């Protein structure tokens, strides 16, 4: 596979995003806002907050991702940039890998801001398990970005576009969201490391399976 080509696409996406921080910057605000709205929905006590916290974090990431994937893919549709990529002698798998890596980096960047804010707002005590939390976040984000990039390409070929993306993406992401929320809950409650590792391994398995499947199937989505 063309690692260099994938790297070039990733570098291009990063450069574009750094020049105008609009998407990632706006999405941080959006994600934090969703996490805030969650609190209004339940009028929670501090105990409720700690129980809802990990779930609220994942739901806001889920929403932010659904908006982001569509936009990150749509920038290839503008000025027929995608056609340009397709006529270049680049493996379709490398093209997907580049876009996937870009989406992962953007989501991780959003998490850097979202996670500390959510932990504070929901009064969550990580009990020093920062490494485990980072590992869980990274694993779930990699899998979610693979599915998101893939279905953004599918949804771009429909008239409903942005509306259809979450409808396709959310049901298929259920294992990842459960892994993130339940694994996170296990960390917050402390002393349930067995559960944490089970959920983490589920997320790893998901990443391996869907990373491979989406990379291989991407060719059929963008084929002209």
């Amino acid at each position: 596979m063309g690692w260099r080509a994938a790297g070039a696409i990733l570098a291009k996406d990063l450069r574009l995003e750094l020049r105008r921080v609009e998407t990632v910057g706006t999405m941080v605000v959006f994600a934090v806002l969703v996490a805030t709205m969650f609190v209004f929905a339940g009028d929670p006590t501090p105990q409720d907050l700690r129980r809802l916290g990990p779930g609220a974090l994942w739901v806001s990431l889920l929403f932010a991702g659904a908006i982001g994937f569509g936009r990150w893919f749509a920038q290839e549709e503008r000025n027929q940039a995608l056609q340009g990529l397709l006529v270049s002698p680049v493996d379709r798998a490398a093209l997907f890998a580049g876009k996937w890596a870009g989406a992962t980096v953007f989501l991780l960047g959003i998490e850097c801001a979202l996670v500390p804010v959510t932990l504070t707002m929901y009064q969550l005590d990580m009990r020093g398990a920062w490494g485990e939390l980072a590992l869980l976040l990274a694993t779930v984000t990699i899998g979610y970005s693979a599915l998101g990039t893939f279905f953004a390409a599918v949804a771009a070929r429909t008239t409903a576009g942005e509306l259809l993306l979450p409808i396709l993406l959310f049901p298929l992401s259920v294992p990842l969201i459960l892994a993130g929320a339940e694994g996170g809950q296990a960390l917050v409650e402390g002393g349930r490391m067995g559960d944490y590792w089970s959920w983490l391994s589920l997320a790893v398995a998901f990443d391996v399976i869907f990373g491979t499947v989406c990379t291989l199937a991407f060719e059929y989505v963008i084929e002209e």
Partner: protein
Amino acid sequence: MSWWPRSWRQFWSTLDGRTYHMMLAARPWIGWLAVGTMAVVFALVFWWVPLEAIQGYPQKIFYIHVPSAWIMYAAFGVVFASSILYLWKRTPLWDIFARCAAEVGFLFVTLALVTGMLWGKPIWGTYWTWDARLTSTLILWFIYGGYLLVRALARPDADVARLAAVVGIVGFLDVPIIHLSVLWWRTLHPEPVVMIIDDPGGGLPASMLITLLTSLVAVSLIFTWLWIQRVWQERTAENLALLEALLDRRERSAR
């Protein structure tokens, strides 16, 4: 035996056409057989099989509910296999097989959900509970709803068949993982749900098992008949469109 394929290559390239012709030939038989077996199922359910000791009459919905749930998996298996064969062979019939199986499969997921809810109300005291099976069936409903939406909303310049095939494959591969995750979710967080019913199939009395299996045959036949009927309709519609296009061209060249 002129219809017998001469090579593997020919076998694969003509498999869809031969399957279609066999389906059409079997269609009336399957239809009448479905009606007959379903009549037997009703007779068994209402007159023969004994009343379940604890649940009484509401338990009888089990004989429709469980086969519907089984058939939905079979239907989505057909979508998966036909989608792979479509991407490989690129003949339109595979796409039609997948499309029609998804439609009829979606009907059976809906049936499984609705009958499950109707059964849940008298037994669990609620229409809906976030039990592992209910939850994963609901997610399955969303996945195939999304599949049908992709078909319905594809842009005119997009290749719908190819797009839908990809969604059908990725969606199907996710089903076992969703099942596993939802199962863990419920067992790691046990809820005090009033589960009177044990696992269906385990320790089921012979009379109930016979009724269930007969119903499984009947529902399978109904599914197959509906699927063939849809495939035939779609095929006919495509042929009609082709004829219209041909006539149109001839008219224009005559002018």
